């Protein structure tokens, strides 16, 4: 494998529950190549969401608990500002519960990622970003839903808005945390089709955590997480990497 896009090196993460330390990740190593679709399969509580949060720079590993490297650069060496910029530009999150801002319309929920990324420069790029956000929502089949608020959308539609938001700043990798976990089978399949098409059409790397084996089968590679460790990996398709 060439220089990996994203790399977890002996990642450890412990949460303190009262006076008890609960290790969630017990030393996780894996790599994601550019354009690769990796599924991390695991039961609830196995630590897969925590792994995703660490890889997305939302959380930090334990002290001496390994590191996450993005194109070779350690996230632990980054300042808060650099980590914010990493989340703005390099990664896009898709969550199980969509996590849309309820006061904003579908279009505004997508645009807000552009506002965070461009700050005061957003004003100059407003039209360009607006067109791009509209285009992404149209591509997700939401052309008629631009002005709808999340409460007026179905679960599948909300998740597609969340995917559009994660793509606005053209990140190199999408981190999807149980993206279909809250959807029925049909809606879940549609979401997965969207993710797969993004991966295939734009060669965007996708890391998806799921407990659904059937969904995990759609990825290039499946990693199984059991009790905070990756138990092994299996390639499901020829990724060419």
């Amino acid at each position, binding site marked *: 494998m060439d220089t990996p896009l994203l790399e977890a090196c002996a990642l450890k993460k412990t949460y303190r529950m009262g006076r008890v330390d609960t290790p969630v990740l017990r030393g996780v190593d894996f790599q994601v190549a550019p354009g690769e679709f990796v599924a991390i399969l695991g039961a609830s509580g196995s630590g897969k969401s925590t792994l995703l949060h660490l890889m997305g720079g*939302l959380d930090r590993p334990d002290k001496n608990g390994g590191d996450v490297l993005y194109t070779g650069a350690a996230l632990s060496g980054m300042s808060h500002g650099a980590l914010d910029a990493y*989340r703005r530009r390099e990664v896009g999150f898709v969550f199980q519960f969509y996590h849309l801002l309820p006061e904003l319309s579908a279009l505004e929920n997508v645009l807000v990622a552009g506002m965070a990324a461009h700050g005061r420069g957003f004003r100059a790029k407003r039209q360009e970003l607006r067109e791009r956000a509209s285009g992404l929502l149209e591509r997700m089949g939401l052309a008629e839903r631009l002005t709808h608020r999340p409460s007026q959308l179905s679960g599948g539609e909300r998740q597609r808005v969340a995917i559009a938001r994660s793509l606005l700043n053209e990140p190199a990798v999408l981190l999807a945390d149980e993206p279909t976990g809250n959807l029925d089978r049909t809606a879940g399949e549609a979401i997965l089709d969207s993710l797969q098409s993004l991966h295939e059409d734009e060669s965007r790397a996708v890391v998806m955590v799921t407990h659904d084996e059937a969904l995990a089968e759609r990825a290039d590679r499946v990693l199984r997480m059991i009790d905070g460790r990756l138990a092994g990996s299996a390639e499901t398709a020829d990724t060419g990497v």
Partner: protein
Amino acid sequence: MYQGLLTRRYLTSKITPLLAMLAVMLCTAMVLVVWSVMGGFLAMLLGTGRTLLGDATIIRPVNGIPHYQELILRLEDEPAIDAATGIIDAPGLLKLPDGSILTVQVTGIDPAGFDRVTDFADTLWWRPIDEPIAKDPERLDPRLDLDPRHLAHGERMEEPDPETNDPRPAIVTGIELAQYSQRQPGGWYTPRWMFFPNAEATLSVLPLSNEGVAIDVEARTFPIANEFQTGFYEFDANKVFVPLATLQEMLSMDAATLVDDGYSFGVTTGSDGKPAFAEPGAVGIDPARVTAVLVRAREGVTPDEARDAAAVVYQSFYDDLEQEGRAVPPPPIELVRVLTWKERPGVSTLVAAVEKETALVLTLFMFISLTAVFLVFSIFWALVNEKTKDIGILRSIGASRRGVAWLFLRYGVTIGVIGAATGGALAYLIVLNINPIHEWIGQITGGRVVIWDPAVYYFTEIPSSVNSTHAVIVLCGGVVFSVCGALLPAIKAARMDPVRALRFE
């Protein structure tokens, strides 16, 4: 950028922030109204006092200041002084046409000279007017059909004798005196037939000897030429103006012949050879006196400067007349008091009391306004808790801690600005209409609630002007209070762990 969008949406979709805005608005309006009324009261007190009393005064009660006409000429030659006039202040009793007797403050004035120092003529109420005042659409104000001679009589303080038509001295009384002229809600007065015009009142005063001992009661009946209205209730309810020369006669302060100390009462033979009383040997004139000389400063000269200039003039006046060896020299400067109008007895304590009361009331209301800070704080604290997931979402898309803090601070600033602006507008409307509001409260409570009692607050109307500097300070204070209330919640939001925030239920 997202801060502006979310601030707008939070403002329009939540009721609780509107409560914070309401709190800021009410506190801002409350403080501004209180400051405007108290500050306006003080400003009106100062302005009216200066108008009524001149800028500076040379006072010598009881014995008075002789040769005051020469002093006035010297004072008016002084560049810092615009005009000067002599007055006599004395207590008196006024018997009214209905037989009632009031204790009054009698002031003897030379109408023309007094007007040059105090704008006295402008305070005369009974003057013809062409157009009714704003609150008199039905043209009920008697001044619309008033005989113009009443104003001339008031200005000259003379009325023609009904029998001889010769001018005779007349008095001008305060319009609230015994409430003979009744103030109407619209702001005009209706006189009772028995009082004005064509009424007479008997004034009694007590002349004192140079030793301050009462000589006898002196009473005279005067026609009432006009009434004055300064808006300063204390004056309008107690003061009676009498022509200076008349009051000098009544108080034995007019010019008199000085007799030889060696004169003894006896009988001599007259030129016709019959017995006659021996004439006293005249040795000079005891000049007319006044108890105070009021001084009006020239434009741009402060009362303090006018006082200092008046003191210098008085000193040279005393030196010169002393040197001339006048039979009755003026008292040395140690025996007179040269004061600004604010330093006059009664006025200085009143002004200081009002200044202290204003500061005290403002401080109390500022403390009460601190509740707005706590209200904004608790509302924002609850808002940050409610919006925990939003904070996690924003952090997940790369919003910085500073950006999240600014979201809530900006929200606080917006609530503060809108609250303070609407509070300022509300205060302006209240202050502008404070007298009608006061009258309305009086009407709906059947007169039981009287917030502004002229007998307590000196003025018949509640002062109604908003000082722009005060308004800016209060409005900025409203914004600062709101930001202070939002500060800790904003810091809490910024420090929130994004993962915990996303998992918040």
